[in-house]
């Protein structure tokens, strides 16, 4: 047994309202630089839909992830090592910019500079790739909320797998949102595809990162990742991917996407797993048993043997304790309500989902029957093959059994808790029908419905003795590094070349944002320095530079220093700040005694 800790996430899809706040804040924090315009570390897809990039789930076309070869051994779907190397000069299965979309901006200057004329001047869309005028015909969320679905929805690779006759019916009936980030897999095929060995999994917390100094731009990771969550920065020629906001995680803060999630549907915590058994589990011949295989790799953090082995593997005591309190462990292994996205890719993904019950509830409500009665819901889950079939294609390689089981648990919870909330006695037969006891059901309800900030995010920080060297921590001035502030920019060999960037990401962010806000060109100038610093924003107040200064304010106030201090929100800001409710210990309207 080789115990390793994995930082992982669960998203409760019933709560996702598709507001894209996670995508926007993530982009603001990480990918608002030139070269990453089309890069969405976090995106929210409407289902049914094609996803981003278009039809990425069609692995017969894109050849991402792993597959079993004829001898039953695990192999990259794109081919063996030699084939991988021989196709390095022109990666055959890499999506082109058109499979994502051509990013654009608008020529706003024309609105103010146009001469007096009969017609109102317009801001023409300009391509951020070529700088030319362009017609906007696709984007990351073109089919948001099933927009244009009559023609597009049927191209959903998941829907294609389902029977022809259910397709139309499905489109008319069901819709839900699927927020996606990098899965930080236990068996990452992007890392396995990287010829340079630049993509690595951090031994401490399992976060998968790209070493920007080692990446040589061979583009194999883009093909290797079946979720298409490794992106190619076309200006620097390097791969970039979701970092699980590691600078925040290291100091115990949740990722930016979780922090800003309006529906509070994301949970972050540790999972302990047996690294020696990952390969065996990923090689499970029966695709529908991969879910079970992956669950069997996780280790019970309460088990004394596991605790001893964890200590032997050098996992600190407080990390094991955090794993015991982990909401992820509870949702995945205790309540068994979370499911992995596309386990059939065999990468052992570590961002899991609680499938949505609401499509079923909606259908039942429409028929006029009591949609919170457990028997009605159970019957509906059994009868409504369409949503279950679709969810099964997403989460269990097509096996409806586990999806049905999860939906029934959610239905049981709904109907059991209604009795309690109405002041009636709980009906113990309802939890029993889904194999749970009343106490567990109430615990699960608390975690799913009213869990507070520190219950949703159980993140042990990196250790204090390492603090001085961590990415983000104010033990020294954030500008106090070799070369001083304001250095960098575009070197003689193109974007981002020049001396190694030794500055903290926060400082880089600050300068990038400043440049962007004061630039007078249409597209962003060739610089890496125009990002706002949301990374060390804890939701209290507004970091300097988040909003452009108001004209009157700019004169009154001293210019905000780049030292990371926050200033109070502009007038109208509430005490908790826009997303700070989770951090304030005040009364929560959702709590019922």
């Amino acid at each position: 047994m080789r115990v390793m800790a994995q930082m992982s996430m669960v998203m409760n899809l019933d709560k996702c309202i598709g507001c894209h706040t996670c995508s926007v804040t993530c982009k603001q924090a990480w990918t608002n630089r030139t070269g990453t315009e089309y890069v969405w570390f976090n995106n929210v897809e409407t289902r049914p839909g094609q996803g981003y990039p278009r039809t990425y789930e069609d692995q017969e076309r894109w050849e991402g992830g792993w597959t079993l070869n004829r001898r039953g051994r695990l192999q990259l779907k794109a081919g063996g090592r030699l084939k991988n190397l021989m196709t390095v000069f022109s990666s055959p299965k890499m999506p082109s910019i058109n499979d994502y979309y051509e990013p654009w901006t608008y020529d706003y200057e024309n609105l103010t500079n146009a001469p007096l004329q009969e017609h109102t001047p317009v801001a023409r869309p300009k391509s951020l790739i070529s700088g030319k005028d362009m017609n906007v015909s696709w984007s990351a969320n073109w089919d948001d909320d099933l927009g244009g679905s009559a023609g597009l929805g049927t191209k959903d690779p998941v829907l294609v797998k389902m029977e022809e006759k259910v397709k139309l019916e499905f489109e008319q009936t069901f819709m839900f949102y699927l927020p996606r980030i990098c899965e930080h897999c236990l068996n990452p095929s992007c890392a396995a595809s990287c010829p340079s060995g630049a993509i690595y999994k951090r031994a401490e917390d399992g976060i998968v990162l790209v070493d920007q100094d080692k990446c040589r731009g061979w583009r194999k990771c883009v093909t290797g990742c079946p979720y298409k969550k490794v992106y190619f920065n076309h200006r620097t020629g390097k791969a970039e991917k979701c970092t699980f906001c590691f600078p925040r995680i290291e100091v115990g803060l949740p990722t930016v996407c979780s922090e800003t999630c309006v529906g509070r549907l994301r949970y972050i915590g540790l999972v302990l797993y047996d690294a020696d058994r990952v390969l065996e589990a990923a090689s499970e011949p029966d695709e529908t048993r991969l879910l079970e295989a992956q669950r069997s790799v996780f280790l019970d953090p309460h088990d004394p043997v596991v605790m001893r082995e964890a200590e032997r593997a050098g996992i600190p005591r407080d990390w094991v304790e955090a794993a015991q309190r982990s909401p992820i462990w509870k949702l995945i292994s205790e309540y068994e309500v979370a499911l992995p996205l596309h386990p059939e890719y065999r990468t052992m993904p570590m961002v899991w989902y609680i499938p949505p019950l609401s499509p079923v509830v909606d259908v039942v409500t429409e028929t006029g029957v009591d949609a919170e009665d457990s028997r009605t819901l159970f019957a509906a889950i059994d009868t409504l093959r369409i949503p279950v079939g679709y969810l099964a294609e997403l989460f269990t390689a097509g096996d409806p059994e586990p999806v049905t089981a999860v939906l029934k648990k959610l239905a049981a919870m709904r109907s059991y808790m209604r009795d309690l909330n109405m002041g009636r006695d709980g009906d113990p037969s309802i939890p029993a029908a889904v194999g749970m006891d009343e106490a567990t059901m109430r615990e699960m309800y608390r975690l799913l419905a009213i869990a507070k900030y520190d219950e949703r995010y159980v993140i042990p920080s990196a250790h204090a003795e390492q603090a001085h060297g961590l990415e983000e921590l104010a033990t020294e001035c954030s500008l106090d590094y070799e070369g001083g502030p304001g250095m960098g920019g575009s070197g003689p060999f193109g974007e981002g070349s020049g001396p190694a960037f030794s500055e903290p990401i926060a400082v880089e962010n600050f300068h990038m944002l400043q440049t962007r806000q004061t630039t007078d060109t249409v597209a962003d100038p060739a610089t890496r320095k125009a990002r706002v610093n949301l990374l060390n924003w804890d939701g209290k107040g507004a970091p300097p530079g988040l909003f452009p200064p108001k004209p009157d304010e700019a004169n009154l106030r001293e210019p905000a220093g780049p030292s990371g201090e926050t200033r109070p929100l502009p007038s109208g800001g509430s005490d908790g700040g826009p997303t700070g409710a989770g951090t304030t210990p005040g009364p929560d309207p959702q709590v019922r005694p």
Partner: protein
Amino acid sequence: MTTTLATILWVVVPYVCLAVFALGHVWRYRYDKFGWTTRSSQLYESRLLRWASPLFHFGILAVFLGHVMGLGIPKAWTEAVGMTEEIYHFLAVSIGAVAGVCTVVGMALLIYRRRTVGPVFSATTRMDKVMYLVLAVVIALGMWNTVAGSILNLGGHYDYRDGVSVWFRGIFRFSLHPELMAAAPLGFQLHGLAAFFLFALWPFTRLVHVFSAPVGYLWRPYVVYRSRSDRLGARAGRPGWERVERRREPADR
């Protein structure tokens, strides 16, 4: 008889260029690890690239091996293993011509693509343009030597293995023969000079990616694990404040 010009051209220039080549790479690697990349433009355009890039790269790899054979291996060695002049010549010209044609066609397509595809052209740096020019000149001169010299035999027979090769090996063995190069046909002289100029340019262009050819991929484990303590944070340590390594307790107590 060695003139001053010959000494400068065939001794001084090669050594200067090689020194720039070697030191330049060391400097570039230390100064600009982040910029050390292929700068692939596949995201913008892949229809032309799909054919042109493998054609060029495999072609140039074969050409490189041909040069190792022609310049690196003394004539006496190939004769010692029983390879006659005729066989050698036939092999070199036939394989070399195929590889050369692949390279030239691939390069022509790539340059055409770079110029005509808008996004690719706008991602081209000034250094790229200089590099393309020099590389194209070197390849064109080399192709000319093969076609005009070895196939058509314009300007009479010239066995580079008795001339250019001896001079080239001499550079590394410090046994200098500028007179051999001074006597070589103009095509070979120009090709050699252009090539050394390209070497001097090499570390400052995207050509550095040649030295990160990922051969190690064939042997390394699929998934790379790295411990955070390898490199804490993105911040470089300050002099005098280096981290004291704390050794982890032995695993089995």
